């Protein structure tokens, strides 16, 4: 067996230079390929975010001079009862939509996991997700309208003789109505995610549990839920952030100007910026929302260390 001797370079520096040339050339190619993404990121994310942060410390009506006001906008928002209402409504919406929405999605995913024609059901449940949010809101407006005009209320009244609340006009009930619409329209996405999670569970694990005498509930509690806990965690984080950002359906479904029960933080941001032209104040409200979202997400990540299992 012969010994392979590496070829000696003819000079000591030429290969190094060649390698450097290749590296430089690759670097340029890489920069070129990354440029569209980086430019898009700068133009549509970094710059607007930076501008919003600067604006939060200024007073500006969108056209006139900007003036520096320090933390006044933040102080004004944090002491404004309307902003307090918006925060409380947003929290209520999250508390209603996240646990109920995810539990429902998990139950549907568990039911669909072993049925035939799974793809068909997946498409059916996913349809609301790909439907325009404005169309969804208009449809629910027809369903939830008060009196004889609403499909739901007129049916309940005619068939059961009850007088249900004015879902979209009653400040006490409107957030429930919004939560129902939100859950309905996001159910399909969560079902698909949970189904994907369920399919990663090795059948041998559930079989082993059954052989050991575990019933369906015990299998769910001790095998299924721990195994899909990373999926549940992911869906929870996304659902909380989505509920904090709720706007389009609310904007179409109700007018939060006339029903303060529907005023959420994002509507407050829109109202301040695009109806009252107080862009500084609006940016401050948006940054408070960002901070709130970061805090809640941080808490969720802290909690997942104890609740989420990443072992296979």
């Amino acid at each position, binding site marked *: 067996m012969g010994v392979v001797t590496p070829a000696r370079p003819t000079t000591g520096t030429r290969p190094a230079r060649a390698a450097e040339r290749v590296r430089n050339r690759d670097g340029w*190619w890489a920069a070129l*390929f990354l440029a*569209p993404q980086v*430019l898009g990121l700068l133009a549509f994310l970094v710059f607007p975010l930076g501008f919003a942060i600067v604006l939060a410390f200024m007073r500006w009506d969108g056209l*006139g001079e900007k003036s520096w006001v320090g933390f006044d906008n933040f102080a004004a928002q944090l002491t404004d009862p309307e902003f307090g209402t918006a925060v409380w409504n947003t929290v209520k919406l999250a508390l209603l939509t996240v646990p109920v929405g995810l539990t429902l999605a998990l139950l549907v995913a568990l039911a669909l996991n072993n049925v035939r024609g799974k793809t068909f059901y997946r498409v059916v449940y996913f349809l609301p997700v790909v439907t325009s949010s404005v169309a969804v809101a208009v449809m629910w407006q027809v369903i939830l*309208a008060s*009196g004889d005009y609403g499909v739901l209320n007129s049916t309940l009244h005619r068939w059961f003789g009850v007088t249900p609340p004015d879902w979209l006009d009653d400040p006490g009930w409107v957030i429930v109505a919004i939560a129902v619409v939100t859950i309905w329209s996001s159910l399909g996405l969560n079902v698909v995610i949970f189904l994907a999670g369920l399919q990663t569970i090795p059948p041998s694990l559930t079989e082993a549990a059954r052989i050991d005498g575990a019933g369906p509930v015990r299998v769910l509690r001790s095998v299924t839920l721990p195994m899909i806990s990373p999926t549940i965690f992911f869906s929870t984080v996304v659902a909380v952030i989505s509920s904090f950002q709720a706007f389009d359906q609310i904007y179409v479904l109700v007018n939060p100007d*006339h029903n303060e029960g529907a005023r959420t933080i994002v509507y407050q941001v829109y109202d301040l910026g695009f109806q009252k*032209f107080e862009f500084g104040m609006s940016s401050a409200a948006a940054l408070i929302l960002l901070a709130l979202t970061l805090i809640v997400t941080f808490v969720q990540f802290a909690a997942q260390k104890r609740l989420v299992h990443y072992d296979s």
Partner: protein
Amino acid sequence: MSFPPSKKTLAAAALALTAALATACSGSGGGGAGGPAAAGKVTIRWSTWGSAEDVALYKAFNDDFMKRHPNIVLKMETVPKYEDYHPKLLTQLTSKTAPDVFFVGDDNIGKFVASGVLTPLNDRLAGPTSKSRPEDFFEGVYGGAKKDGKIYGVPNDTNPEVLWYGKKALQEAGITEDPAELNAAGKWTMAKYLEMNAKLKAAGKAGSIFWNWYGSTYSVIGGFGGKVWDGGRFVATTDPKSREALSTLAKGYADKTFLSADVLPASNGANTQFLRGKAGFYAGGRWMIEVVKKGGDQANYDIVPFPSETGAPMPGAVAASYLALNKDSRTPDEAFTFLTEFVSKEGQLLRLKSGGAVPSIKGAEQVVLEGGYPAHAQTLLDVRDTGFANYPEEVAVPGLTKDINDELMKVWTGKVGFDEGMTKLQALVDGRIG
């Protein structure tokens, strides 16, 4: 058989995408007010809000205009909802991509005037090519579009705020006097109006329905002999008569003598309640003709101005919108040609023949009177001729009108007590005007 794209092809695509992004972000590609188009034609962009019916009327005007001016191509940009229109316009003005000519609502005109984005129009309106001269429009309707004698926007039409009333509803409440006849006799007083509202309430109906906007609120204040703005100061909460007017409104909303159309359920809204005779009066403009037509009993309804303290005529509120010329227009001459024809007598006759507004220009009154409906249609013209658009002091502060309305709504709905609400309202306005 397909081949994977080469690195050079991909690089070229990346370069093209980068260039496209850079161009899009620079705001120089295709945006901005119109300019020279192909074959010596000039494109004029103009924007407005409006329903599908409004847009159809504007389109007819555009077609007619382009036939008469073959060198001008009009490009109309519409937004369905009034609330969504001004944010878009503001964004366009900030990014220098606004149309050459655009509508501005009376609650926003002051801001645009103050920020210097509009062209003063006095010289052009008085010039030889003008089809609409400054004196053709009633002084009070200019509102915030006129500052220091300079005209920055021309009223393109108006909607005087009057009280519509249902004769049967009044009769059912035992009211035998006709408001329009009382007005003609100089006896249409605030006291008489409130007395009628009380009778309607006693008969299980609402007295009046108001939308929560300056047109109704300030007309009631005027009816009590009060003032809203005086010497640049907001005095609606401090002037005794104005305060009495606001207090009367607050009490009326509390005991359901008055209804706020804004908070009525959509399924049983203001139109429905009025058409069903559940309320005696409904404050609105000429647009109400379409509403009462749907009721099928047009003869039941008539109009009367808001009552005054003494029964003598008083200035009423007039909703107005303005047509303004972008200061950055690259073709201001052609843009003005469009503007002046749009607001001219002929332009308004064409646009308003089936519309729900009142012409802003003198000499086009036949649009309002020729149908003979409502019976006292002349009232709409009388209010327009002597009325006022929202106060310049108020519209000069962006969003102030909405802030005032929001604060008042808290009082009308009982979320804030009257005295506390007045204190907060005054502080809010003082804070905003600085």
